[in-house]
């Protein structure tokens, strides 16, 4: 076959001097049409569950919901948002959500990094440790809730039993009885579940580092601490920041553990925005307020995503 004109998809000639190939633009159009046909059904389904609801929720956040006729009621402008802004429960939930997100992102990243550093060492039983570390990944979030609920159970929980036996606490504690403590129990459950993902990616990152550079620095007399601070950390930052960000975004979705462990209580002390939206929408059925709160949650998430992206860009540039 002559190699001059190759018209298979993906091989079309381009660049100067090919404009005479009117034929190709026809083929090109056909290729685009085929692509649209193949992507179309998936796109429709995705639009049906993401795009349409997102717009509907946005509209709803500026309206009242007519519960009798099950459709949008009067438009109230920013009424729902203003109402939320004056609601201490909502403001508390917003601050709590941001704290909860950063707490999980931080603890999962630090714990994941330390475990990845450990697994990067050679020692007997490393494979077993690696398999065990990945285990919580296989645990559905709802089961993680049950499991940590039982661990921190006031009467039969292992945490009380172990801590009192070790002499750290005098008497059994009611861990879920106080909102602030309970929030941290939930964060422990979420962090425990997040660690496998972090370890897997951070370990892959560590193993992709240029090892000969570290050897060279060692030969030149750089101490382990110096190598960690001035070489390992800066090199890992471009990997660490997106991973921590993913954990933050996932923490915004945390629901199952909260539902199972505390249902947002005691006294709303573990109600994050996600849970707040659920409660407003499906328990008090104030759908307009719920939609507005959902959009605040989205804005908070996007704001943190933006911050992290800027931070990563700054760090990469100033290395």
């Amino acid at each position, binding site marked *: 076959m002559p190699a001059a004109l190759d018209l298979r*998809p*993906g*091989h079309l000639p381009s660049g100067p001097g090919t404009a005479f190939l009117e034929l190709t633009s026809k083929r090109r159009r056909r290729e*685009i049409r085929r*692509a*649209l046909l*193949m*992507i179309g059904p*998936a796109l429709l*389904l*995705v639009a*049906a*569950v993401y795009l349409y*609801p997102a717009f*509907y*929720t946005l509209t*709803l956040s500026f309206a009242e*919901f007519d519960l009798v006729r099950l*459709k949008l009621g009067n438009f109230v402008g920013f009424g729902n948002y203003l109402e939320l802004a004056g609601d201490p429960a909502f403001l508390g939930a917003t601050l709590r959500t941001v704290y909860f997100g950063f707490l999980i992102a931080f603890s999962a990243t630090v714990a994941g990094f*330390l*475990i990845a550093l*450990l697994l990067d*060492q050679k*020692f007997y*039983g490393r494979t*077993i*440790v690696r398999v*065990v*570390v990945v*285990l*919580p990944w*296989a*645990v*559905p*979030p*709802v*089961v993680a809730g*049950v*499991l*940590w609920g*039982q*661990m921190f159970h006031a009467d*039969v929980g*292992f945490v009380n039993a172990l801590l009192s036996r070790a002499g750290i606490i005098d008497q059994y504690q009611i861990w879920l009885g106080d909102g602030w403590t309970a929030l941290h129990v939930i964060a422990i459950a979420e962090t*425990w579940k997040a660690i496998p993902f972090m370890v*897997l990616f951070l370990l*892959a990152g560590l193993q992709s580092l240029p090892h000969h550079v570290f050897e060279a620095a060692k030969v030149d007399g750089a101490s382990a601490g110096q190598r960690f601070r001035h070489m390992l950390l800066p090199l890992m930052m471009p990997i660490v920041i997106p991973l921590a960000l*993913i954990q933050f*975004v996932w923490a*915004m*979705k945390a629901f*199952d553990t909260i*539902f199972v462990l505390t249902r947002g209580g005691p006294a709303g002390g573990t109600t994050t925005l996600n849970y707040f*939206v659920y409660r407003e*929408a499906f328990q008090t059925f104030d*759908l307009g307020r*719920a939609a507005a709160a959902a*959009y605040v*949650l*989205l804005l908070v998430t996007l704001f943190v995503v933006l911050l992290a992206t800027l931070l990563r860009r700054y760090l990469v540039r100033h290395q």
Partner: protein
Amino acid sequence: MIALKPRVRRAIVRNGLVYSSAAVVLFVMAFPLYGLLLTSLQPEAVIRSRDLQFVPDKLHLEHFLEVLKPGHIVPIREGLWNSLVVSTMTAVVCLIFAMPAAYAFSRLRLPGRLVLLGAMISVYFLPTVLFLIPMFVVFVNWSLDDSFFSLVLAYSGFILPFEIWILKAFIDKLPRDVEDSARVDGCTDLQVMMRVVLPLVRPGIIAGFIFAFILSWIEFLTPLIFTSNLKITTVALGMFRSTIDIKVGQQAAAAVLTLLPVAILMLVFQSLITRVLLTGADK
């Protein structure tokens, strides 16, 4: 005392550090799971007593038998069956929709396809509660709440972006030559996809099926909102449908039963799953 050479001393310190931290990691990551299993296998009296017993002298299956009885207040039996049906249906629907889309994203030059794919994957990470209110309204309006259909539709849509991403990663790695020569031989795109790509991309299809299955199996918020009928409760939800406080041992047994299918799938396909996720690492 024997004076140790610095090199030996450093090795001892290093090993001590490594092995003690490995022990801590093992304990923290594995003990909660072990504790759950232990609780599910011990009689309620032992669980309630404050004497710790980390190694049971006898395994009791009574909690499992109890929760699996028909008509138990924890509808695990129905839940397991319903989740199996819904998750399988979702996985199949996802594959049917994602396969052509993934192929087009990988092979055909559509302007803006990377932006489109990126946008689809970004929304996957957002809280689902943002999308559930309107879907609830629509389903109630059409009397589709409390149906498998509503669950499969919602799950499939939610999982689809991720599914397309997985399949695309596998198709990207296939050599184009085979497809090209099939095309020269006169195959249409559809034929190329069905006869050439599909058999080659089998690991991707398995991976896609497993991910969609697991993600549907563990979904909690969607069925919590869309279902109220106990007949169509899913397994993740089953434990929380009853308002009566159930026994600790039975709760643990129900949790183990919810976890088991996912754990088995993850163990059997561990290397495949790790491979899929780490393809994202180099992007």
